[in-house]
């Protein structure tokens, strides 16, 4: 009990400080009505000799619309709107999923969408949040709560400045890693 209290006393101010900056960043992000940018994604996989590179566009419209349109090396379209995910690939055509039905999928969407929306409540439904830095330059580490998601993803780290997300790093279970960098248009 004593130890607990001591830990709380120690962490309290620190946590409070982090919380405040996090809330500040969340407020800044929430004020953004729409984002359009180019992305470049690099995946480093144990199975491959060289990283996989893909480029394309990312669109966001507050509060629930997020679209990732890959242009290279092949056209693919992922569009999340509210509870629905629409996937369009040349191989399988157009398919729709109810995100509620895929507990391992939803957190991946929310990592970017809810962060950009400044929706801390939704983020905390799926992740443990660790914030570092100040509004001018910050990083937010998301650790999945649900075992279904944790089986595949160890953590997602978002880095940014003020109301702009600059990169999203996905750390997968088994050491694979993907980095997505964003350039606003």
């Amino acid at each position, binding site marked *: 009990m004593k130890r607990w209290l001591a830990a709380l006393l120690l962490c309290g101010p620190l946590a409070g400080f982090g919380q405040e900056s996090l809330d500040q960043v969340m407020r800044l992000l929430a004020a953004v009505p729409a984002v359009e940018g180019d992305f470049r994604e690099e995946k480093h996989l144990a199975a*491959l000799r060289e990283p996989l590179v*893909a480029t394309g566009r990312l669109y966001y419209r507050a509060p629930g619309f997020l679209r990732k349109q890959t242009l290279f090396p092949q056209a693919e379209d992922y569009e999340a709107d509210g509870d629905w995910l629409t996937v369009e*690939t040349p191989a399988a055509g157009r398919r729709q999923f109810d995100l*509620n*039905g895929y507990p391992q999928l939803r957190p*991946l969407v929310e990592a970017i969408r809810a962060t950009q929306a400044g929706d801390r409540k939704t983020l905390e439904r799926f992740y443990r949040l660790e914030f570092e830095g100040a509004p001018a330059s910050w990083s937010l580490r998301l650790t999945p709560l649900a075992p279904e998601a944790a089986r595949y993803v160890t953590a997602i780290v978002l880095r940014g400045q003020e109301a702009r997300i600059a990169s999203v790093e996905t750390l997968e279970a088994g050491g694979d890693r993907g980095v997505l960098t964003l350039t606003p248009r």
Partner: protein
Amino acid sequence: MNFAPRRWIPLLWLLAVLASGWIAWTTPVVADLTLFAPRADPAAELLLEQLRSGPTTRLILLGLDGGSEADRAAASRRLAERLRPDPAFARVVNGAETLPDADLQALLAQRYWLSPAVAPERFTAGGLRAALQQRLAELQSPLGVFQKRWLAEDPTGELLSLLRLLQGGLREPAKRLGVWFSPDGARALLLVETRASGYDLKAQRAVVAAIRQAFAGAGAATGVSLTLSGPGVLATLSEDRVRAQAEWLSGLSLAAVALLLLAVYGSARTLWLGALPMLSALLAGAAAVGLLFGQLYLITLAFSVTLLGETLDYPTYLFSHRRAGETVEETLRQLWPTLRLCAATTALGCLAMLDSGFPGLGQLGVFTVAGVIAAMATTRWLLPVLVPPHWRPPRPTVVGDWADKLLRPRPRLALAFGGLGVLLLIGLLAKAPPLWENDLAALSPVPRELLRVDQALRGALGAPEVGHLIAITAPDAETALRASESVGAYLERQRQAGMLAGYDGAMRYLPSLATQRQRQAALPEAETLAANLDIALEGLPFKPGLFAPFLDAIAAARAASPLRLEEVGESVLGVRVRSLLSVGARGWTALLPLSGVRDARALAAGLPQPDNARAYYLDLRAETNRLVAEFRAAALWRLAWGSALIVAVVGWGLRAWRPAVAALLPVLLALLFTVATLLALGERLSLFHLVSLLLVLGIGVDYGLFFSRPAADADLRRRTLHALMVCCASALIVFAMLSTSALPALRAIGLTVSLGAAASFIAALIVARPLLNRLD
């Protein structure tokens, strides 16, 4: 000589009651539909087997309402967790289940025999390269996180196509918070498959209790409520309802009849004396059916209610005819020729049903014959030894002078009445209104609100309706699977032509050994495969040696022996296969349920007949309706035979044609009036109406016989009128009350018998006397 019977008759009766009571008590009541089945009709037997224990009858649909969305989802998860370990359930699904790891490993090991995509061209350099490029694209995509798990072992993606196959068969409901929900999100949904048949009422009762108990433990705290439905649940619930309503209504009507008897005779003794023949009839009927058939159909039980109507009349005839100056035994001896004829006509009328290919009709016949004989014997021999020799009901059973007026023959009225009957008959024949109810659903004792709940749950879950299916019978499992494959190929062609939306079958999950061997033969030798893979990998970024597990897996699959039915066990695959492929008394039966059939006749006409097996196209709804119609035709035919027997018995018993006509013509008219009134009320005649008409025939012949009885004096005639009025009044009370029931079966019985009893009484009163008086 009167001393001995006074002691041994009650003793004998008591022994008989105890013995039949014990037999009746131990006879199981069944709600299934075999009673409709004519024996020796293979398609009908297959159909009934499906209706009785087919996979769709074993489904229970669960809905969780109330509380918040999160509450409902949590309750769904906890309920499923509690139900899964219970061996009574073959399957518990709520959308959240992940395939157990053991099952996944087993599928992975067997993928090269089970996957329908396995073919030689898949393992050529070109085929492999196409597969590898697709895998690379998947790795690139956001979903690659989930798909890379099997990359090294299964680059051709056989496991994925197997999982997709297993997921099919059922359209999945929408999910919220990872579990199934109705489209509007108000109700969480689960689907349970029991191991026991849906019509094994005892097992289903236990299953329903287990579900409720598990739910009490899973969702009690959150204010979530449970709704459940499905064939088994409906069967148990409707049996409970029928029993409860029948008990409540018959209790109420018996109380009313008791009051009537008390008011008329002013004696409590008439109550228990009147009850004895009824009790004997019920026990003897049930015991006889139990002994001969080993089980009692619900419809027979419902019929027992109608038998009460007739058996109550026998003691009434005795009470009303008691006069000062003669003993009970003497009164009975006077009544005996008529009473005997009453019982004989009813019993013989039902005798026609005994030698029948339809067990349902046979039960009705046996029940009635045994019941009527028991009631008659009780009245004749037990009642006189239970009362003092000169006992009479305290209240005089003589009616006033108005009775003479009422009994005065009115030939013109009789003629007009008969004319009206003829007109009605002509009208019915000319207009030919829809007479019969062929829809089995209308026969169902299931209350309508339960059916609505069932439809709502079924719609939300997308559970398969009992509809169209193909049944294949074969001497062994392998032949059944092979036959299923050839029928499946036919169905696939028809599906592509748009003739049906889809089909299922055991062969989709467990191919025949022949097909598995064929797939095995499509796997290349190790060196060839390695060479092909090297060519395919050229220019792709996969690390060298990554696919060693793949090469090993193919080598292992080439060497191993294919998967047999005995080896599938309790896995997801095994449960699915066994629900569609089963062994019975007539060998193996494979089922191929169809969905979205456009033209059943064309589909059935083109159905191929595989070697060593037989394929039947079953349209369950059309088939059951056909069976009901056939059953009814058989019942009508038997009824006609029974009527002919009755005419013969009455003619022989009365030994003169005019009294015989006087006794029989009224009941004929009464039946006509009853049917016409029922149709005018908008009823369509179901089996329950028909069975009730049989009873009306029995009661009506009794009324006719008593009204046309040669009477010594006016006093006796008045007493007969008194007796008949009490009989008719009690029948009206009992059956008018039944006709208020919300259950279709009870309502049909009540309406028919109360109308019939009233019509029989009026017809006998108006028609029988004038016909006889011409004789005087």
